[in-house]
Structure formats: C-alpha cells, structure tokens
C-alpha cells in the first residue's frame, strides 16, 4: 500500500498524484490530507517506549496516520519548507513516528538502532513545496528512513512530482 500524507494546504498536487497513480493502474494507495488535521509536535515524553508501548500519549489526529503507516509499503510525505528544510508540519509527521520503534537497542552495521516494533515498516519518500536544500534533504531522508529500518525512495521538489510517481509502486 502507498500512503501519501500531504501536510500542505495545496491539494492540487494530491489531485495530480491520484490521477497519475490511477492512470498507471495503481489501486492500493491512500492519500491523507493532513493540513487541516490536528497534529501536535512530539513532546519527547518517551511514554510510547516506556509507559504505553507503541501508543503516543498525545491524543490527536496523528494516531490514525500511525495505524495506516504499519500497513504501508511506501510512505510519501508532502511538506512545505522553511529555513532550507521541512517546515514544522512536515517535520512533525516524522518526529511523531517514534511509537513504531521500541526502547530496545541493537547494532545494525556499525551503528546503534532501535529494535522495530512491527515486522514491516514503509520506505520513505519526500515531496517538498518551496525552497530547500535538496542535497541536504536527500541526505536527511536517507537517515530518517534508517530510524524505522527502511530506505529512502527519493526526494523531489513538487514540480518534479511525476518523477516521484515513477517510484511509487
């Protein structure tokens, strides 16, 4: 399943993606328009690791997204930008992903990582609107995906959305 989370108010891009995915015969995808949803920042309470394992202490609209994430093969986040990076709405989607990993630790290669909570996690792609440092975002997305034991699907400015669609399957 391809899960697309749009944190921007621009729904034209998701309309284009929907049409393009349908056009190439994809049926197993879901688009979440998150711009109007109530999604807080992560407060770093660690409850999702040590008090209510796997469950975020913040009761807002993010929980529904988290439930979808554990069934997804690909996660695509559409984000606005700020100061050369994701804006806070986009970053919050990533920061709140912590319930997908456990408190337990292991070495993967030569680096410490958390032990995953679920067998499957989604590979991660990023589409951004506005000015940002693309090379940095590519580096960052590779690292972000490592946090859930997966890989980057690529980073694309919104105007290159068709390139992103080629990676959606």
């Amino acid at each position, binding site marked *: 399943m391809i899960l697309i989370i749009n944190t921007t108010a621009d729904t034209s891009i998701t309309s284009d993606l929907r049409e393009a995915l349908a056009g190439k015969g994809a049926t197993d995808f879901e688009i979440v328009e998150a711009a109007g949803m109530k999604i807080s920042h*992560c407060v770093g309470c660690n409850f999702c690791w040590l008090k209510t394992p796997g469950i975020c202490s913040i009761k807002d609209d993010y929980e529904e997204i988290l439930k979808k994430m554990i069934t997804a093969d690909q996660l695509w986040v559409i984000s606005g930008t700020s100061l050369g990076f994701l804006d806070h709405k986009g*970053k919050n989607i*990533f*920061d709140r992903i912590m319930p997908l990993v456990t408190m*337990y630790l292991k070495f993967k290669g030569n680096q410490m990582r958390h032990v995953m909570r679920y067998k499957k996690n989604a590979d991660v792609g990023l589409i951004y609107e506005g000015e940002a440092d693309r090379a*940095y975002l590519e580096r960052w997305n590779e690292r972000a995906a490592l946090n859930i034991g997966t890989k980057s699907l690529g980073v694309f400015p919104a105007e290159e959305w068709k390139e992103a669609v080629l990676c959606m399957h």
Partner: protein
Amino acid sequence: MHALIINGSPRVKKYSNTDKILLKITAGMEESGATYEQYEVSDRSQWPKIRERFYLCDHILIALPLYVECIPGLLIEFLETLDAERKAAALENSAKRPVMSFLLQSGFAEGVQLRCGEAYLEMLADRLGCEYGGTLVKGDNFSIRLFEGEQREKITGAYQAMGKIYGRDGAFRDEACRKFTGPEVFPLPVRLLVGTIFKTLAKKGFKDKAKEWGCTRPLDDKPYLQ
C-alpha cells in the same frame, strides 16, 4: 560575553535532558565570567521574549536534542515566527551578525549519529543571518532523565568544561569541543560487548524503569495489530 541561550527541546524543562546539560554549560560559563539569559521553547509563553531578544544579543546558543536526524518540529515552528525584518537586517549587515552556536545532544552514543543534524545547523545559522560559531556534538544522554545525583553527574559533569570554553570564546570552535564528541563509531569489540549489554542488562533496566512508570504491557507490545 553575554549569551542568549535557547533550550530548543520540546520536553518541559523539568524533564528536559537538554536543560540538565545546560545547567553544567552555564556553570562553566559563569566560571569564565560570562553572563546569560535562558529561555525554553517548550514554553510558548516565552516565545515573544525570545523573539524580542533574538537579534539584540551578540551571542546565541541554541541547545537541542536530535529529533529524527535534525531539529525538533517545535523548534522549527518557533524559528518560523522570527521577525522577518530583523532577520533581513542581520543578513544585510554582515559586520554585526550575532554568533550562533549550537549544542546538539542525542540518545545514541556515536558521533556519526549526529552529523546529519549538525550539517543542518551550520546552514541554519546562515539562514538566520548569523555567523556560525560551531556545534558541540555529544550523544549518550538518554538516561539523564532517568538518573539523579551522582549517576546524573557522571553524564552531565563533563559539560561544565565545555561551558567554560564557550564562556571564554563565545563559540564552540576550540579543538577540545570537537574531541568532546568521542568516537564516531565504536570499534567491533566494543560493539559486541555493548550489543550483549543491550540484550541483557539494558533490557532489564528499561523493563524496571517502565514498571516504575506504571507500564503494564511488554515494551515490544504491538497495540495496532490487536
């Protein structure tokens, strides 16, 4: 030297590891004769005051935990609210740019884990119209919150010397600050040993702590599969 210190952690001050580190940094700064004012991004009521002071101080130190390889969403949200006119003025007047330094801390212990975040901070200083004063990078801080007294001191104590340097230089450019990070990755024998500890002692420690916190489920519970 007077510094505006911003604790960029989204965690409330009482439980903030970054705050406990800053207690040592500021103690070191005082030893150097430096002064400071500290604000918390976790407390939105302080945002107007931080904005007011942001471009009036010659030295700015943002201390933050690494959140998914970069800066926390809440800190981004705050920085998005900075006064555009003052930022533009700072960008234009390179002679009077404030020196912006960072303290980047994480739970994972190896230096390599923080480099992606550090790379962004260098870009961020420039985008905010500031001169980059370097980043003090250090991992292995997760348990600060879980410990008190001597155990906490063991983790945070060494930061005081870094605070002294920051108070002296108004930046983290000194070679001692670079070395403070420790190993980029652990050698294989250490990884094997620590890996074994993760599976045994650390696992038990986390389970005990969870019990203390009132946890009634296994730590690897899968709530959304039920």
